[in-house]
């Protein structure tokens, strides 16, 4: 069975060891950021905000913070791993190894998912010190975060293949991923936006991930949760197919 091949397991192991060796930077730093958000916006200022969908502001915010940590770290793991390997030239070790394109894509994605889900879990643990979190739809939540993490790992994978310099990657992170994340409803509900900006927000795919996670925990959502999950599954499928095809084509990896 493909997933049991030694090269596949080795590549997944390498990806996990890579971020584990610098865990302060890859796991603890995002957990620390989430803690500060919880303290400042949730604990200190949150009491001044009205309840949203019947939940205190701090409870409303936690699913957004979890999703933010999850997708950012899934993206960063594959993006930095592959870009550094390209920069140092060690990518040749993987490109000349007997690993299929599907295996390579899945192994990198799995590495990103483990880090992303790890950060998400850490944020959840930290949030318990500030507020209890209900779990309204566990299976839905698990499916959604797995595929959201898978999608962003693949996005990081594709971005690192495309990027030729670290600056290219910084541009993507700063001018695309960061605004989409903050404008995807981490800190607010769509209901507070004027109608025009509410419609604009519906084109932000991160909205569905954040809103879906919130539905999984709290059982409330701004958009149809079934549509959110279906959209994320579709995006994951498209990104996976694209990643395998790009890898097979040799684009920016093989001469």
């Amino acid at each position: 069975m493909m997933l049991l091949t030694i090269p596949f397991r080795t590549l997944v192991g390498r990806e996990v060891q890579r971020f584990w060796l610098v865990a302060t930077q890859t796991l603890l730093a995002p957990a620390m950021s989430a803690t500060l958000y919880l303290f400042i916006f949730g604990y200190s200022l949150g009491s001044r905000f009205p309840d949203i969908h019947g939940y205190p502001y701090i409870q409303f915010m936690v699913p957004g913070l979890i999703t933010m940590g999850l997708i950012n770290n899934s993206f960063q793991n594959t993006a930095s791993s592959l870009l550094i390997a390209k920069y140092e030239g060690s990518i040749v070790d993987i490109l000349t190894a007997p690993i299929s394109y599907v295996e390579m894509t899945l192994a990198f994605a799995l590495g990103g998912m483990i880090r992303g889900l790890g950060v998400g879990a850490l944020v959840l643990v930290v949030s318990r010190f500030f507020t209890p979190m209900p779990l309204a739809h566990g299976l839905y939540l698990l499916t959604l975060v797995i595929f959201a993490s898978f999608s962003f790992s693949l996005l990081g994978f594709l971005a690192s293949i495309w990027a030729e310099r670290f600056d290219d990657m910084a541009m993507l992170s700063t001018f695309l991923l960061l605004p989409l994340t903050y404008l995807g409803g981490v800190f607010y509900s769509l209901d507070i936006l004027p109608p025009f900006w509410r419609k604009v927000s519906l084109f932000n795919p991160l909205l569905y991930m954040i809103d879906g996670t919130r539905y999984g925990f709290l059982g409330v959502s701004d958009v149809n949760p079934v549509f959110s999950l279906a959209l994320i599954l579709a995006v994951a499928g498209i990104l996976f197919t694209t990643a395998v095809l790009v890898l097979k084509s040799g684009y920016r990896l093989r001469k």
Partner: protein
Amino acid sequence: MKDRSGNSPPGSGCGQTPALSIRNLHKSYGNVEALRDVSFEIHPGEFFGLLGPNGAGKTTLINIVTGLARRSSGDVSVFGHDVVQDYRTTRRMIGAVPQELVYDHFFSVRRTLVIHAGYFGVLNPGPRVEELLDRLELRPHENKTVMQLSGGMKRRLLIAKALVHRPPMLILDEPTAGVDINFRLSLWELLRETNAQGTTILLTTHYIDEAEELCERIGIINHGKFVALDRTQNLVRRLNEKKVTLVPQQPITALPASLTDLNATLEDGGRRIILHINHNTADLNDILRRMADTGVPLIDFRVEEADLEDVFIHLTAGRGSEKSATGKRAGKQPATPLQPDRA
């Protein structure tokens, strides 16, 4: 017998299947033709040298075999398996040492070897890793990260990585570039030993003495095209030339007139007279007689066979190539181009 991955070992039961077969290989980068109709084979267990000046196409050829570059047209197979259609099989059979010092800075030397073995499907790499740590003298550095190693040690690690899965074919792209003489000699010994155990070796190098010392057959490539392919001894013999050195007792200021029609040159400030003579037709008695007539006493007289470096210079001179790594002078008269054999 099956290997770890369940495949039959290359060479066993494949009779005359070449270790590497390249047929009509073309590679273009835009309008630049990097390889032009290259065809040759390497036999199982052979030690093959690939020579050529910078930019001749050696690395491109190797990259196509290992999967780092895509061919424009032609066929490339390793032990009978196509490098594109059956890439997982061919890559498992190849251990490659790249020209550049590439490394993964996150891991220690030991961990790097274990990971690399895993990429190639080795289930229990421990014993092989231990063996290579000792053989490549990496033991004192096993727990250092690769960034902490010197250039020579990084080069050793690259070679250990290429050998860690016991590949039936080893490809080395200028493995001794920038290493000290002791490492160079110990690498030669390791390569001879590896080859004696049945591993086919394809070596590219700038050190022509290295190729002459190690390789059974040599291909010379220039501007993407093979200009010679033969046994090393045959290549040297085919140049059909000997070098005669006459050393006068005292330096002379001008070349004796009686030697000018033999295309002699005066070198080293008048301390040596050099002549290049035809291997079959030259008359050494005539040269000595003419020298005696000049009245210039000689203290030495040497006749040297052409070596591989002479062949290399001969075949690549005047075609935009550089001088060889050992710095011999180029500029001999070009002879009829040697045709590559297609054996």
